[in-house]
C-alpha cells in the first residue's frame, strides 16, 4: 500500500573499497517537492546525487522513480533532467542544439524538436540566444540554458548539482528566486545538492543535512533552524554558542560558567554529558540583573555591522564566545567593556552525548 512518490531512496549505501561514503540514506519525495541535500564537502551528498542520476552504482539499497526500481538502469533510461556544476554545455553545439539534445536522443528530428526547444528556452528567457554557442554566453545565461536542457524532456525528476557556485552573489540570488518559482510553477520534483546553507534554506521545501554519509536531519528549513536534531546540524546551520557540561537529573545544566536551567522536556533521569546550544537571537543584553532565568557576565570582543542587524561578540569568563543579535541601530559598545547577557530557558537546545557513571 505504498503511497505515490516521484523519488524514493531506501537504505542506499555506497562503499569505495572498505570506505563507506553513503550509509543507509532513505527519503521519499512527493510530486513537486524540492529537497536540498546539504552538508560539508565529503559528507556523501554528491555521491548520493550521482547514484540517483546513475553515474555511480549503489553498493546496497534501492532507488525508485515513480515506484519503479531504477538503480540498475543506465542514466539515459532514468527519465531525469540534470543541471551540472559549471553547466557542462556541449561546446560544439548551439544553444538550440544543446537544449534539443535530449529530444534528438529520443529520436526526434531537429525540425520537430524546434517548437519544444523554443518553448523551453522561453521559460528560462534565453529564446533570443538560440543560435549562439556556449562560449558566447555569460555565466547566468549558460546556467539558464543548462536548465532548459534539463527541462525540455519533461523529466520525472530534476537534479541540480551546485548550480550556483560559479555565479556572483547578486546574480545568484536573482536566479535562485526565478528558478525556484519556475520549478514550483511546473510542479517538478527536484533534488538540489549544495554546501551553501542560505541557498538550501531559502529554496527548499525540505532540507536533508548529511554528515559522514548519513542524513542527520530531514525537515523543513524552519524546523531545521529552530529545532536542530543533532549537535552537528546545530553547528552547521546558522551561528550559535555551545556550552559543554553535564545534564543533571534535577533539571539543570552544569558547566564551567555556572548552572543553567534546561528547557522543558530536556531533563534526564540520569545525569549525562552534553552540549547546551544558544542561537544569537535568543541571547539578550540585559540592564537589570535577574531579568532572565539564565545570566552571565562577558567582555565585548567585537561588534559586526550587517546592515539590517548587528552581532555582538562577547567572551565569557572561561573564554566561551557568545554571539548576540542586536538591533541595527543599537549604539556600539566599546571593545573590552563589560556586558550582562541573559536568555530564556526554553530557547536553549540540549544535546546529550553520553550518560555519566
Amino acid at each position, binding site marked *: 500500500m505504498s503511497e505515490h512518490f516521484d523519488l524514493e531512496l531506501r537504505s542506499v549505501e555506497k562503499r*569505495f573499497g572498505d570506505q563507506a561514503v553513503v550509509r543507509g540514506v532513505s527519503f521519499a519525495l512527493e510530486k513537486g517537492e524540492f529537497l536540498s541535500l546539504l552538508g560539508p564537502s565529503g559528507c556523501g551528498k554528491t555521491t548520493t546525487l*550521482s547514484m540517483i542520476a*546513475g*553515474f*555511480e*552504482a549503489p553498493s546496497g539499497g534501492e532507488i525508485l522513480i515513480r515506484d519503479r526500481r531504477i538503480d540498475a538502469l*543506465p*542514466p539515459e533510461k532514468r527519465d531525469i533532467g540534470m543541471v551540472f556544476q559549471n553547466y557542462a554545455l556541449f561546446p560544439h553545439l548551439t544553444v538550440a542544439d544543446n537544449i534539443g539534445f535530449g529530444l534528438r536522443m529520443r529520436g526526434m528530428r531537429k525540425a520537430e524538436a524546434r517548437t519544444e526547444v523554443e518553448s523551453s528556452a522561453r521559460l528560462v528567457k534565453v529564446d533570443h540566444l538560440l543560435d549562439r554557442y556556449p562560449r558566447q554566453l555569460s555565466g547566468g545565461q549558460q546556467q539558464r540554458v543548462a536548465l532548459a536542457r534539463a527541462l525540455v524532456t519533461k523529466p520525472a525528476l530534476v537534479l541540480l548539482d551546485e548550480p550556483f557556485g560559479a555565479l556572483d552573489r547578486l546574480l545568484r540570488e536573482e536566479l535562485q528566486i526565478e528558478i525556484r518559482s519556475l520549478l514550483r510553477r511546473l510542479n517538478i520534483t527536484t533534488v538540489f545538492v549544495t554546501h551553501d546553507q542560505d541557498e538550501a534554506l531559502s529554496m527548499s521545501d525540505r532540507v536533508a543535512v548529511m554528515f559522514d554519509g548519513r542524513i542527520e536531519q530531514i525537515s523543513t528549513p524552519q524546523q531545521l533552524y529552530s529545532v536542530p536534531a543533532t549537535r552537528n546540524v546545530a553547528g552547521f546551520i546558522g551561528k550559535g554558542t555551545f556550552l559543554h557540561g553535564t545534564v543533571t537529573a534535577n533539571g539543570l545544566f552544569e558547566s564551567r560558567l555556572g548552572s543553567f536551567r534546561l528547557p522543558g522536556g530536556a531533563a534526564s533521569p540520569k545525569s549525562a554529558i552534553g552540549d547546551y546550544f544558544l542561537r544569537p537571537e535568543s541571547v539578550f543584553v540585559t540592564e537589570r540583573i535577574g531579568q532572565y532565568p539564565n545570566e552571565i557576565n562577558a567582555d565585548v570582543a567585537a561588534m559586526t555591522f550587517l546592515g539590517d542587524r548587528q552581532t555582538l561578540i562577547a567572551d565569557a569568563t572561561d573564554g566561551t564566545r557568545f554571539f548576540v543579535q542586536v538591533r541595527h541601530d543599537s549604539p556600539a559598545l566599546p571593545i573590552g567593556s563589560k556586558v550582562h547577557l541573559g536568555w530564556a530557558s526554553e530557547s536553549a537546545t540540549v544535546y546529550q552525548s553520553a550518560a555519566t557513571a
Partner: protein
Amino acid sequence: MTRSSTDLGQLARIVLLLPATIIVVVGYVLPSLVLAALSFGIVPGVWVFSEATTSHYMRLLGDIYYLRVVGYTLFLGIVVSVLTAVLAFPVGYYLARSRSRLTSLYAVLTFTPLAVGMNMVTLGWMIILGKTGFINALLLQTGAINDPLQLLYGWGAVIVAMVHVVFTFMVLPIEAVVRQIDPSLEKAARILGAGPIRTFIEVVLPLSLPGIAAGFLIVFLQVCGAFVLPLLLGGQGFTLMPIAIWEQITVSFDRSFAATLSVALILISIVVMLLQMRIMREKSLV
C-alpha cells in the same frame, strides 16, 4: 579510482584496447623478439630453431672497425646535441619571452625539416655544399677561391645538416621551460646587483636545465638513429651504426650480424635514456 555505471566495464575496456594491442603485439613486439633471437643466431622458423650463439656479439666487441663505428655514433650524438643546445637556447628563450605574433610562424619553420622529409633536407644541403653547389659557386664568382672546396662528405656536412633537422626537438622543450620561469626572477636578480650575464648564468640557466636535458635526450636518440642524411652527406667510409646495419643487409648479406648491431643500437639508446633519467633525478630536476 572510482567505478560507476557510466564508467567503462571491464569487458568494454578490453574490447576497446584489443585492436591497438593486437597491432602493437603483431607489428612490433613479435618482430622485436625475432630480431633479438636472430642477433643470437637463432633463426625463428615455423618448426626449426637453430642453436643459440653469442659469436656475433663477440665479433662486435672484438672488431676495432665496429667499435669505432659505435664510437663515431656516440661522438656525433654528443657534438650535435651540444651544438644544438647552444644554438637553440637563445631562440627558445626568445620564443618564450617575445609577444610577437611571428613566433608561431617560427615554430612552423623549425618544424619544416620533419614535415618535408629527410630526402628534401639532404638534397638541399647537398646542393648547398656540393662541388658545383651554392657556396662554391659564390666563392668562385667572388674570386675568393680558384678551385672548388670539398665541403660535402665528412663530419662538417653531417653535423650542420643534423643540427638543422633536430633543431625543433631542442627549441620546443627549452621554450616550454623558459615559459615556466617567472620573468620577475630575472628582474629580482638585476635589482640585487647581478649583470645580464650573471643573471643568465645564476638564474636562467639553472632553471632551464630540465628543458635542455629533455631536448638533449631526444636529439641524441635522433642522431643515433639517423640514416639517410649521414649516408648521403657523410660519403664513402663515413659509417655510423644505422649505416653499418644497412651495409650488412645490402652488401654483406649477413642478417644475423645486422640484428646484433641493431640490438647494440637499442641498448645504447636505453643506456642513454637511463643515464639521463639518473642525472635528472640526482640533480632533482624531476
